[in-house]
């Protein structure tokens, strides 16, 4: 009884949180709302890729393909059939807004099914391929889908497709994200998830213990791609405009980065990394210079920053490799390394300012943001290769441990 009570309350809280978010962001600008929506979509994408990559250990780097399949399937169906007399006849008698809602829910399911079918197509060869071979096949599959869509005039070709009517709802997008998180989390917490972990840890041993490796891998691909497809369907209806360029290789890489940055296998990590990596570039875009226009840096400044970061990272790594027992001493060394980096940046700025071609070059902050993205990626990998959360999950017992210093038993599957 208590179990069902907690379940019911958490489901209600989740739904409530989504609508609260919608209410909270209701008066925000379109731009800010779009960022909230993108974070929701990327959370879904990262968590679903985490199921394939982090939890099942199948190295897939073509997740944007499933996103695209979902988006284009849903977009095309809406464009072609929503206003047809038959569909309108079936939805007859409902208020106009709920007609669209019901249709959207249908489209989410259809998008998910189409993407799951694509996932099955990729999952089947994955039975024979491993590691890097699988990686390049998934990458190639993503490119093939993108190029095929680009050459279909019915889908708008490379110009893209206008999806009407639009459906702009933050709540639905975040609900999908929460459903995705809940699915993966529950899968991991129950016995159904153990086969996935065993495939990641040791396929042969898992097979010997009676795990159906084939079925597990294909299931992982099916579930992961279905969620990506559903996210795609929502994207198509939120933006109202999709082009093949929205689903390029770089998107796949960004999703993969989110998974790895958060810590492969950690759902919490994927969620937080997805939010950070979606917000960070937009945050950088917002910087203003002294004259009120977008900030631009001098070339010397950018080079000095790079020197400073390189110095700090190098020193931090050097300190990490030394086994310093005392906690305070170690902290001191860390602070020292960061201070050295800052000094390096200031000195570098003074030195490089004398180099005319560097000093005269003005670089708008807009161009620098992808560089910062790359640098963050490299720095995190150099300093914490297991990702921010490693394989840990957020849990109340973890919070208790932090505050009460309570001993909590470690388990293989994080609680």
């Amino acid at each position, binding site marked *: 009884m208590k179990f069902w009570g907690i379940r019911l309350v958490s489901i209600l809280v989740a739904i409530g949180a989504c609508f609260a978010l919608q209410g909270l962001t209701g008066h925000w600008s379109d731009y800010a709302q779009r960022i909230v929506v993108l974070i929701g979509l990327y959370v879904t994408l990262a968590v679903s890729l985490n199921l394939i990559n982090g939890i099942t250990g199948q*190295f897939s780097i073509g997740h944007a393909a499933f996103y695209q399949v979902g988006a284009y399937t849903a977009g095309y169906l809406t464009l072609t059939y929503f206003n047809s007399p038959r569909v309108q006849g079936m939805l007859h008698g409902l208020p106009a807004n709920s007609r669209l809602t019901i249709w959207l829910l249908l489209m989410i399911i259809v998008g998910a099914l189409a993407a799951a079918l694509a996932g099955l197509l990729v999952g089947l*060869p994955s039975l*024979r*391929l*491993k*590691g*890097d*071979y699988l*990686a*390049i*096949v998934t*990458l*190639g*599959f993503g*490119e*093939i889908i993108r*190029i*095929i869509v*680009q*050459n279909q005039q019915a889908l708008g070709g490379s110009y893209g497709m206008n999806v009407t009517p639009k459906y702009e709802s933050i709540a639905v997008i975040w609900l999908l994200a929460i459903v995705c998180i809940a699915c993966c989390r529950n899968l991991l917490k129950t016995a159904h998830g153990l086969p996935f972990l065993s495939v990641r840890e040791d*396929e*042969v*041993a898992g097979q*010997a213990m009676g795990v159906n490796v084939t079925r597990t891998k294909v299931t992982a691909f099916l579930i992961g791609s279905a969620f990506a497809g559903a996210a795609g369907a929502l994207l198509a209806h939120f933006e109202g405009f999709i082009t093949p360029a929205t689903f390029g*290789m770089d998107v796949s*890489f960004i999703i*993969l*980065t989110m998974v*790895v*940055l958060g810590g*492969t296998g950690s759902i919490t990590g994927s969620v937080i990394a997805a939010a950070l990596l979606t917000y960070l570039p937009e945050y950088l875009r917002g910087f203003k210079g002294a004259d009120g226009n977008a900030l631009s840096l001098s*070339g010397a400044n*950018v080079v000095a920053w*790079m020197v400073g970061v*390189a110095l700090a990272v190098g020193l931090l*790594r050097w300190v990490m490799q030394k086994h310093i027992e005392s906690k305070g001493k170690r902290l001191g060394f860390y602070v020292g390394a960061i201070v050295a980096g800052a000094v390096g940046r200031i000195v570098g700025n003074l030195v490089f300012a004398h180099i005319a071609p560097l000093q005269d*070059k003005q*670089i708008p902050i807009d*161009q*620098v943001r*992808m*560089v910062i*993205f*790359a*640098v963050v*990626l*490299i720095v995190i*990998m*150099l300093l914490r*290769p*297991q990702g921010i959360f490693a394989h840990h999950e957020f849990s109340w017992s973890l919070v208790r441990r932090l505050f009460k210093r309570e001993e909590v038993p470690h388990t293989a599957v994080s609680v």
Partner: protein
Amino acid sequence: MTTALHLVAGLDFNTLPQQLVNGLLLGAIYALIALGYTMVYGVLKLINFAHGEVYMLGGYVALFVSYYLGFRPDKVGPTHSSIWNLLIMLVACMVICSLVGVAIERFAYRPMRSHSRIASLITAIGVSLLLQYGGALFLPNSPPPSISELVNPYHGQSKDFTLVAPPASLKATVDSLKPASDLAAANYKSWLDSHPGADTYNLPKDGDALKHAAQDAKGKYEDAQHKLDTGGVRLIIQTGQAVMLISTIVLMGALTYMVLFTKRGRAMRAVSHDFDSASLMGVNVNSIVLFTFILGSSLAGAGAMMTATFLGTPLTTFYGLVPGVKAFTAAVLGGIGNIPGAVLGGLLMGMAENLVVWAGYSNYRDAIAFVVLIIVLLFRPGGLLGSSKVEKV
């Protein structure tokens, strides 16, 4: 069935040899880049995503060296080039690219070696993004510069081979139509000469008839001439591209010699066979990894210099993205870690791409690489020449 017939009917088999040769030239460059991927993978088991960016930097080095040699777009420089200029560019590209490769290995990949492979892979993606976007801040990329064609001493030269002569009847038709065409043109011209000041767009009746007769005869003659030109099987090879192919073969030969017959090459093969055991046997693993990066990156630099110079492609900082991905696909196709496999894969990939263009599906030329890859991997999971091991307890 009808579609199949239609497909075959749409193909022009007379241009097939030309497309195959083009495929060979393109494939040789893919092979050159793929060698870098495959060697690094063989030694470190790491997909060096930044390899395409090393290739891109090679293109820029060639551009700057050509500026230094005087071939600047904004100044009038030398009008003639020599093979020495090309050699200087080639050597500069190879040296600087290998330095870049060594720096990437030393500062990004070596610290990651003790960590999981996916962490190294993400680092590689990070380095690749850093070079693409960081390079865009400092390197000239808008408008995309391209190397002056004057640097290429073989610019505009080509060799024309006739493999199959066109049918004699076509030649006879052309010969028979030529006098009529000439005669009609001469008649019209003499009429014009006798009527000075006539408006050629508004002629009197007799002049108009002569004009049309001349145009018709000329049209028939040119039509026959065109049929004659495309009737046979011809092969046009630009001298620059031939030089490119020969240099590629020489470089590959040098690589094969180094890998098979030198001490370092043997050490490299040992490391690629078993990293840990090789280090126990006294191989200096770090220096061998650096050596691998030097070889791979200098080949990429040479490839970039040749494509940028002989093909004249405009440079941006994303210049290496597509060739990089395709070359990596080629390496996997041939069996990653396998040196002859990379060459075979590269050539196949280049051929496949040009065959798709030949068949009239040029929109799909970027997709064919992956289609071939997936089909091959379904039947041979370890690539064409690679071996896939079944894992046992």
